[in-house]
């Protein structure tokens, strides 16, 4: 009885949407889907193309062989893979302390109203948008040559990539620090803790998941950078592994660059395989970032 009454009521009160309205709604949804699929289709095409070219080349031998200029069957990416891993570790060791310390200063100590800190803030945002090749030139002039004069070595590459992604780390860390509610700071300070104790015991642990996520995302940008490494003079072809931070090195994007520019299609297949290795590294890093964010994210 009830349902009959409700049905008759709904017929009277609620009219059906007109056909025109329904068509517009459908069109809009289709347009949204089309935009969404643009990005997806491009990515899928890229991955399918790379997999079809490079999958056959991918093997353990490929990962554990030095590159070869003569035989595409025996070529590999060992030196580039190890160079990239070292680069990322060194880069992280540089950007974590410097980036977090900068963020702590700007958020916890600097007077936000002052002209200087606003200037710094604008500067950092602009630095994040500077093309990577410019950082390569900076690295060449100040780190490889000039004041530091390190030469085109692993440390120089890590510092250059570090400078490139430092603004990102600072911006993300500042957001993570700002997300720690001020009531936590007040609670700590009201107990007689110093500002440093408050930052070290409460603010930084609270900001850690956000900072870690930001650092990984910054590294996943640095891992694919080619231009700055080319400009500072890193090797594109190396049949040796770097053994210390002052050794010459090559890296995955440089190896890909070298493979792809070869006229021989077999070498280009090796390039596709190297791209797959780099993509796998990227997926692992981003998955790590997502895991950290979901696992340790705090609801205040």
């Amino acid at each position: 009885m009830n349902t009959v009454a409700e049905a008759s009521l709904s017929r009277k009160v609620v009219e059906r949407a007109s056909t025109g309205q329904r068509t517009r709604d459908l069109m809009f949804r289709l347009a949204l889907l089309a935009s969404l699929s643009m990005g997806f289709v491009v990515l899928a095409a890229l991955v399918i193309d790379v997999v079809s070219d490079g999958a056959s080349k991918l093997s353990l031998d490929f990962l554990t062989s030095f590159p070869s200029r003569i035989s595409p069957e025996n070529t590999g990416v060992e030196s580039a893979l190890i160079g990239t891993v070292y680069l990322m570790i060194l880069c992280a060791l540089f950007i974590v302390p410097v980036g977090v310390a900068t963020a702590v200063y700007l958020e916890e100590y600097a007077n936000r109203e002052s002209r200087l800190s606003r200037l710094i803030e604008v500067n950092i945002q602009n630095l994040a948008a500077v093309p990577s090749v410019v950082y390569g030139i900076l690295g060449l002039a100040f780190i490889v040559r000039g004041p530091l004069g390190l030469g085109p070595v692993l440390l120089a590459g890590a510092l250059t990539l570090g400078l490139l992604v430092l603004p990102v780390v600072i911006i993300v860390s500042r957001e993570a620090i700002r997300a720690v509610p001020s009531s936590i700071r007040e609670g700590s300070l009201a107990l007689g803790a110093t500002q440093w104790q408050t930052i070290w015991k409460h603010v930084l642990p609270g900001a850690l998941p956000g900072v870690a996520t930001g650092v990984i995302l910054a590294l996943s940008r640095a891992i694919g950078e080619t231009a700055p490494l080319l400009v500072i003079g890193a090797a594109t072809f190396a049949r040796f592994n770097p053994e210390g931070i002052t050794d010459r090195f090559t890296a995955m994007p440089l190896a890909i660059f070298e493979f792809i520019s070869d006229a021989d299609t077999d070498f280009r297949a090796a390039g596709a395989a190297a791209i797959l290795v780099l993509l796998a590294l990227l997926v692992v890093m981003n998955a790590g970032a997502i895991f950290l964010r979901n696992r340790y994210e705090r609801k205040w």
Partner: protein
Amino acid sequence: MSEERAERATEPEGATPEVVGAPVIQTEAKGQRPEAGRRNTIYELDDVGVSYGGVPAVREVDFPIYENEITALIGPSGCGKSTLIRCLNRMNDLIPTAEVTGKVVYHGQNLYDDSIDPVQVRKRIGMVFQKPNPFPKSIYDNIAFGPRVLGTKGDMDEIVENALRRGALWDEVKDRLKANAFGMSGGQQQRLCIARALATNPDVVLMDEPCSALDPISTGRIEDLMFELKEDYSIVIVTHNMQQAARVSNMTAFFTVELDADEKHRTGRVIEYDDTEKVFTNPSDERTEAYVTGKVG
């Protein structure tokens, strides 16, 4: 008590309502309270004013706060009660634009002297905030944080147990000290924050609307707790709840908001400061009466 009130009623009241603190001086001079001899002043506020970025928020605050008593600060929103209570442990230092004038004399020392380290001040003067703000750590670590930063010697387990007992929380949490404090109810969290403040063995506990986020039962428990605590501590409480001020406090300061001469800025001032009983039953200022009886506010 009735004798006492009768005696006061004969006083020439409200001749100059602006002179805050005057009734107290009379009270002391006459020695009406039986414990007057034991009443020690812990804070002496001398013409205290606070402005934010040059705009005064509260001014001309002049009254003493007594040891082992509960002093309530009441008044409408925006009258500067919270601003004032945050002067008592220099929490206003955290707001860069806040500027404090006058003297906040604590045991004979002006807390705003250049030689005073605000960190040392806060070690002696604990604070409980409007919204419970436990750290995202275990119950145990919440309590232990204060003693640890102070470098307190002794058995930490014992310190934690003592603090939780004084905070009337021990029986509820003794089996889950390692559990995260965020899993507690709001009322438990606030008692944890009180226990946390007590763990450093402060001299004064400041409470800025400690029950405003709690239900009546939790509020009742915290009020009971305050009664017990005033044996050992001096308590200053900001509250919006008239009944609460009437129930728990010994002394009450009534704040109100006044418009400037140019009618641009609203500034808080103390209209009346006296024994709570007098403020609520026989206030000397009609604005106080209107507020405490619920005619305004």
